[in-house]
């Protein structure tokens, strides 16, 4: 039985009549221990999809389930890493993680919980910054805290909603490697959402494109059978990487091309006749009823030079 399963789910937003269908006929199944990356354009419904699994959004039709149970709301078995980190700014690194740990492992002793928090801070290499507030950290460090907070809950599945898209390219590369490493050591199930095809192929076991049809649907999964750990410098010259990348980008671009919408608008030229400004101050001008229109004129005299 797959760990996460979505069957025939669809979701739309807005009141009836002015409704936008975002996702349609979504079928997804993720096995335990799998690293799945979903790639799609910005605004194509990626976040909605992951929020269905996290339980923040309920599908209109179809179901999302974890270990066979239908998901009805958020829970600590599905750890969500937010795109904008969502650390609480008034708590320091340790307290932010402790908030999650205290809630999930209520029956532990305070010492156990403290050690648990320290372990995960060490895992993301932030031990020296444990007592700093989020505003004193760089973007990359904040996202590491966010990852540590989620991992510390020991969720069955790690949901990452564009976790690195707010970071600069170099930090992003570093964090991709770090998270891939952490996954190698933990083997948690991961569902990662991104808009970067390279990132997707670099970290994933399985890449699924989210096709930007309107409403969006999932494309055919692609299996990335490259050995780990992957070296980002060497991989650029790997024939399999290049092939997958071309295939993925082509799929996404083709789907985008097919959704181009044709619309026709009737353009009418203005038919107001120019005013004679020599008479602006005259009573006749003030008493005129609005601008003159060409269509009002019954007859127009045109002088033609012989």
């Amino acid at each position, binding site marked *: 039985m797959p760990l996460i399963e979505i069957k025939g789910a669809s979701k739309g937003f807005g009141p009836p009549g002015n409704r936008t269908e975002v996702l349609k006929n979504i079928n997804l199944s993720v096995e335990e221990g799998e690293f799945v990356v979903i790639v799609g354009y910005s605004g194509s419904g990626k976040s909605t999809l992951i929020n269905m699994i*996290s339980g*923040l959004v309920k599908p209109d039709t179809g179901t999302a389930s974890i270990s066979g149970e239908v998901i009805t709301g958020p829970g*600590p078995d*599905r*750890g969500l890493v937010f795109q904008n980190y969502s650390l*609480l*700014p008034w708590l320091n690194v340790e307290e932010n993680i402790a908030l999650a740990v205290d*809630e999930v492992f209520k029956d532990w002793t305070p010492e156990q919980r403290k050690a648990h928090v320290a372990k995960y801070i060490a895992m993301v290499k932030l031990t020296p910054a444990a007592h700093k507030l*989020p505003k004193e950290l760089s973007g990359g460090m904040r996202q590491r805290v966010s990852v540590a907070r989620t991992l510390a*809950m020991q969720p069955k599945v790690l949901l990452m909603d564009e976790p690195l898209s707010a970071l600069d390219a170099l930090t992003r590369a570093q964090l991709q490697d770090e998270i891939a490493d952490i996954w190698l050591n933990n083997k948690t199930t991961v569902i990662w959402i991104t808009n970067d095809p390279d990132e997707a192929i670099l970290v994933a076991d399985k890449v699924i494109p989210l096709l930007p049809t309107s409403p969006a649907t999932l494309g055919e999964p692609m299996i990335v059978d490259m050995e780990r750990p992957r070296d980002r410098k060497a991989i650029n010259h790997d024939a399999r990487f290049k092939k997958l990348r071309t295939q993925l980008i082509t799929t996404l671009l083709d789907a985008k091309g097919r959704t181009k919408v044709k619309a026709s608008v009737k353009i009418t030229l203005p038919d107001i006749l120019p005013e004679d400004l020599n008479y602006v101050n005259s009573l006749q001008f003030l008493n005129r009823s609005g601008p003159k229109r060409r269509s009002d004129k019954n007859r127009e005299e045109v002088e033609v030079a012989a």
Partner: protein
Amino acid sequence: MHLIQRFKLDSIFLPLGAILVTCFFWYVIAGKSVITEKVDDFGDKIKVTKREGLSADLPTPVETWTASKLYITEPFAKRGELDQGILRFTWMSLVLVAQGYAIALIIGTPIGFFLGLSKKFTTAFDPIIQVLRPVSPLAWLPLGMILFSGVKIVNGDGRTTFGASDAAALFTIAICAMWPTVMNTAVGVRAVPQDYLNVAKVLKLSKWKTLWKVLVPATLPYMFTGFRLSLGIAWLVIVAVEMLTGMPGVGGFLWQQYNANSYAHIILCILTIGVVGYVLDRLMSAIESRFKTA
């Protein structure tokens, strides 16, 4: 270096200049005592003092100072129930304000939270709040007197320590000072980013924990802005309340001195109220900036 020095000098001399100019205009419009010698009906020479000027009864800055010197140099002296050092009066007023203000915060903050959290609560109570908010302290005081007419706490000697007028005073301060706290807390709660609430949802925090770990800290900056505005209003209301109830304090002293024709003391009271209000505001904004998050 040159710039910094100039800036510092400017920030001292410009306000000083403005104060001197104001005092000069004050002096110009103030009345001056003119002493003339006159022969009265019995043939004796007597001195007659007459006040002249644009506003004959207004004391000049110097007269104000001489008349107020005793109150300022001995700020904690007690010479009688209504003749005490200015800081002693200020202290009495501050104690009363502190009590009324505390009531305002204790009642106002939860109301603000309810307004911010529940749309139905807002729809239900918003009209009442909007109508009550602009009512002047002078209007609330008589109502307070009626509401608490039965209140009487007597000490061992049979003297009333807390009567209807005390209760009415606290009621007036509390109800007038409450609104900024209510409104700002409500706005703050509504402005809590959805991200933080999502964190609480994903972690499955209990309602109580969400309130204390997420909502309250996130709202704190707004709440303190409300607290600061509330304190300003509480201090404004105190004068009116003391005047009407005759309680001892800066406002009571001001009114009593007006009735006693000691006009110089009125100016002393006004300046004291102004300075204390300013200090309170600075104090609150210092606390407020400590609670600014991110």
